[in-house]
């Protein structure tokens, strides 16, 4: 496979790193919110916030890379599939920013600022405001559900290309030696 048909190393690295983090964050987020208040809950919330802010940082780096490096053209396929793929990718990019930003806003509004890995205090985006906090909580949850659905769609499409169509779509994002 030639270099022009595969993503470049940094894009591949960012994709799989973010995939792993998001696949951990989504179930953790849905699980932890139902827990009664306990030291374990506070620990899980802190980890969730730290990893979420890491995803936001990676999203910034990845977008910067994407805007300065042309991705390999998609493999030929039915127009409707290409359109849905383009739309899914655009929405995923949007949510890579929107989900962590809504979480950050929620933390600020609820008066529990984010200290990244317990070391770097992040600025509060808004002042403490309970009503606003609930609003951002709903936004964070709703956007996270949207992310979960899109991730499943993205995953299903990748596996369909790999196992049903048996084309090189998934291989575009897999690491491997340069030809």
């Amino acid at each position, binding site marked *: 496979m030639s270099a022009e048909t595969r993503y470049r190393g940094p894009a591949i690295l960012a994709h799989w790193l973010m995939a792993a983090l998001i696949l951990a964050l989504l179930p953790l987020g849905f699980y932890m919110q139902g827990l009664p208040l306990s*030291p374990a809950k*506070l620990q899980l919330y802190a980890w969730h916030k730290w990893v979420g802010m890491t995803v936001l940082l990676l999203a910034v780096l990845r977008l910067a890379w994407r805007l300065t490096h042309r991705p390999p053209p998609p493999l030929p396929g039915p127009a409707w599939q290409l359109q849905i793929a383009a739309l899914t990718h655009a929405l995923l990019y949007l949510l890579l920013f929107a989900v962590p930003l809504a979480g950050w806003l929620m933390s600020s509004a*609820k*008066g*529990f600022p*984010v*200290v990244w890995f317990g*070391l770097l205090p992040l600025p509060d985006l808004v002042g403490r405001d309970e009503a606003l906090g609930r609003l951002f909580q709903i936004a964070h949850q709703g956007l996270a559900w949207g992310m979960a659905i899109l991730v499943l769609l993205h995953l299903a499409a990748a596996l369909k290309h790999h196992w049903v169509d048996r084309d090189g779509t998934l291989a575009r994002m897999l690491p491997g030696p340069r030809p």
Partner: protein
Amino acid sequence: MIRPQPYAPALVFLAGLALLAPTAQAVEYSQVQPAASKLEFTFKQMGVPVPGHFKRFDARLRFDPARPEQASASFSVDLASIDAGSPEANAEVAGKQWFDLPQFGSARFVSSQVRPLGGQRYEVRGTLNLKGQTREVVATFQVKEEAGRAVFTATLPLKRLEFGVGAGPWGDTSIVADQVDVRLQLLATPGK
């Protein structure tokens, strides 16, 4: 934030009298103005500073800047009036592992000694009774006098576990730090 204050009119009256009174050489501040006073604290949760405060407390003091060694102070705090950052946290700290409110509804501090540190700064020692434990604690405070009244700002670093506050699994100080910084701000006018 409305504190039950049956003697508020009397306080206002006394404050008015104090303002009218000719300035004496020695002024003893003894009338605490609850509406202009506050009791706050900060603790760290997973490295994140979380602020809180108590809505209801009763503070008394006698302080003459000319004779600080003779000063005294006491306060009692209605622990149920806590705002620990969220409704969930407020419900949690009422329980047995934290304040155990049904058993120990209030905390009380009584000063034993006041020592000037230079400038407008002082050190006050006293005993704090919290959750059935009585321990000597040391706070530092600053006094700012202006227009016939004085603002006292005291800081008191406490170790919550010395008082058994946040016991059991909450004793893990990597989650909730042992140290709680208490800040008390009192506005007082001279007594009659």
